[in-house]
């Protein structure tokens, strides 16, 4: 993970325990007992245990886990709707624990906003009244807050709906109101607690796309909770997998797929579509035979014969890709005395190493030759064959 990113929110050794005998339960947890055993022995529920997270500014950080994994509790620690039993939560250098009531109100009003699973809309207010709520409690005058709210309602595609009652909207539209309400305050952090889980799959896909579009424009810091691995990988720059109140692994979707920390992550990630996560650099092969562009046709033919290949990659002296030469073209060049530079296929499909496998599938089905992976200087890094793509799909 890029370490240069500025970290906006931090969780350090955060624990949250509910119920009686918390000290006893904490001692058992420290001794290595699991959540279920602790509950049986003490009646105390461990919602979070020793959670450490660093949320980079301007990125989407996804927390994923099954129900009861503590993900919703974790996100509520970031605006202190839930106060951790132990550990601290930091916004920049500010410790949330040290805020008094007034600081906390100011923090919630200006710095963090939240989107809820079942929308949390106020049915006695119209769409505009809901979207402007955050500004209203801050004391922004009506005209100004409504102007601001209208701007964000337009951004989420609800222009013209502002005087409708929320009861009359579909689920997707209600959540758009929820998102507009959260954006309208202009707060840096957006906490999203399973925002799309209550929506049907088609609407969910639209909403994911819309949110990505908005995020591309606004670059807010988003903490996104979900239980759907495809959603996690689609939305997240970084994904954190939680289980039983603990963090199992944090990484980019690709890291989680390629290097899962344990079987739990592997089985979790197994449900995801690998080709949308894994980049071609993971499946490319190093070309076994290469010829220089100023080598003769004879040399190219020998190279192919020695390696049992029907084509060969041609590069220049700086290792830059020039093209690919097939055996037919090499033989024709030898007959006519052409140089291989004139005989070769220059129109080769080239991709960057971080291209997702899914994105090269259409090109691969069309192309007769392998796809070349090159860096920004057009230096050849490897080849992706159809066989390798097929293997990745399985």
């Amino acid at each position, binding site marked *: 993970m890029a370490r240069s990113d500025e970290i906006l929110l931090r969780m350090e050794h955060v624990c949250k325990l509910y119920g009686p005998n918390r000290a006893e339960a904490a001692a058992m947890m420290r001794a290595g007992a699991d959540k279920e055993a602790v509950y049986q022995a003490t009646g105390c529920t461990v919602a979070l245990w020793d959670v450490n997270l660093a949320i980079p500014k301007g990125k989407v950080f996804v927390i994923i886990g099954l129900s009861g994994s503590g993900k919703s509790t974790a996100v509520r620690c970031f605006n202190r709707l839930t106060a951790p039993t132990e550990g601290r939560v930091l916004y920049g250098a500010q410790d949330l624990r040290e805020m008094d009531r007034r600081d906390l109100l100011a*923090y*919630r009003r200006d710095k*963090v906003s939240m989107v809820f699973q079942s929308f949390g809309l106020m049915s006695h207010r119209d769409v505009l009244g809901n979207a402007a709520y955050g500004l209203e409690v801050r004391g922004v005058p009506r005209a100004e807050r409504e102007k601001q709210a209208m701007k964000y309602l337009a951004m989420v595609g609800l222009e013209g709906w502002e005087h409708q009652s929320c*009861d009359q909207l579909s689920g997707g539209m209600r959540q758009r109101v929820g998102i507009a309400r959260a954006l309208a305050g202009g707060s840096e952090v957006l906490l999203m607690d399973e925002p799309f889980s209550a929506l049907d799959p088609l609407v969910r896909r639209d909403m994911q796309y819309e949110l990505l579009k908005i995020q591309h424009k606004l670059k807010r810091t988003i903490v996104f909770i979900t239980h759907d691995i495809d959603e996690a990988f689609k939305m997240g720059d970084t994904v954190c997998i939680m289980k039983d109140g603990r963090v199992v692994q944090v990484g980019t979707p690709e890291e989680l797929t390629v290097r899962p920390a344990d079987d739990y992550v592997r089985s979790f990630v197994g449900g995801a579509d690998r080709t949308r996560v894994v980049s071609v650099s993971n499946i490319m092969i190093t070309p076994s035979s290469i010829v220089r562009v100023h080598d003769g046709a004879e040399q190219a033919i020998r190279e192919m014969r020695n390696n049992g290949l029907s084509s060969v990659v041609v590069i220049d002296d700086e290792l830059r890709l020039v093209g690919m030469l097939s055996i037919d073209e090499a033989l024709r060049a030898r007959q006519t005395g052409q140089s291989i530079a004139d005989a070769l296929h220059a129109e080769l499909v080239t991709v960057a190493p971080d291209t997702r496998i899914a994105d090269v599938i259409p090109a691969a089905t069309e192309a007769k030759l392998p796809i070349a992976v090159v860096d920004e200087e057009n230096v050849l890094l490897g080849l992706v064959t159809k066989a390798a793509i097929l293997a990745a799909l399985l």
Partner: protein
Amino acid sequence: MNFFDFPAFLRLDTAAIDGAVRGFAVRAAGPLSAIKAFLAGLVRLTGLLLDFIPWPVLLLLAGALGWRSRRSWKRGALYAALLGLIGALGLWELMKVTLAVVLASVLIALVLGIPIGVLISGSERANRIIRPLLDTMQTMPVFVYLIPALLLFGTGSASGVIATVIYAVVPVIRLTSLGIRQVDREVVEAARAFGSTRWQTLRKVQIPQAMPTIMTGVNQTLMMAMAMVVTTSMIGVRGLGMEVLNAVNRIEIGRGLVAGGCVVILAIVLDRLTQSIPGGKKGRGNGGDSNGAER
């Protein structure tokens, strides 16, 4: 040992309790008479306001409210006609006297009851303390506190208001508390997440969301206040109740039926009209549908 006659070893000195209450009435005469003056004044003011309205206007008002509640002219005309019947029977003045006591009692019950309901919705401890009190108030026979009210405030409308409030305040407390507790948890969480103070959460979210339930409480409180009309006439509250009481004492069956019928008519009209007060979207929705016509 005799196991058939229970040994009554705890004989309370009820005479001492009488004495204590009397003593208190004497010692606290100042504050008590101030309260009495305030309550009697409130009833008189309400009565004056009602006297200020000419009877055709009151009938039109009932009709208009009835029309608004059901979107039906027939309803409005029915309510106006029912009220008009009371006047036609010659009990218009008595009805206004009764209405003044009932409205003043309901006003005080709401002013006390809604904040208490809000308090016990938010505090488990307050709830534990107040709940048994509410149970007592609802089940204690009315006459038991009619007598001390008489002793402390004398006969007249002030005692009547106090007895009525004690009896009628319970539903609005319970239903306010229930309504606020039933507000969607996520909606309240959203209000907090956006930095609402407690007061803002209450005023902008919880009370508006609970409004339909609170309005049901208001309606129930009004109905219970109406139920006290005849009872409070025994401590000298004038109006339709007194008419019924006199008829009973003199065994005038016809007169009793007429006055009693007027109490029922007034209760029905007040009930339907308060049900129609829009308490948020939900309340209006329920009031407007077809099966709401006959409750």
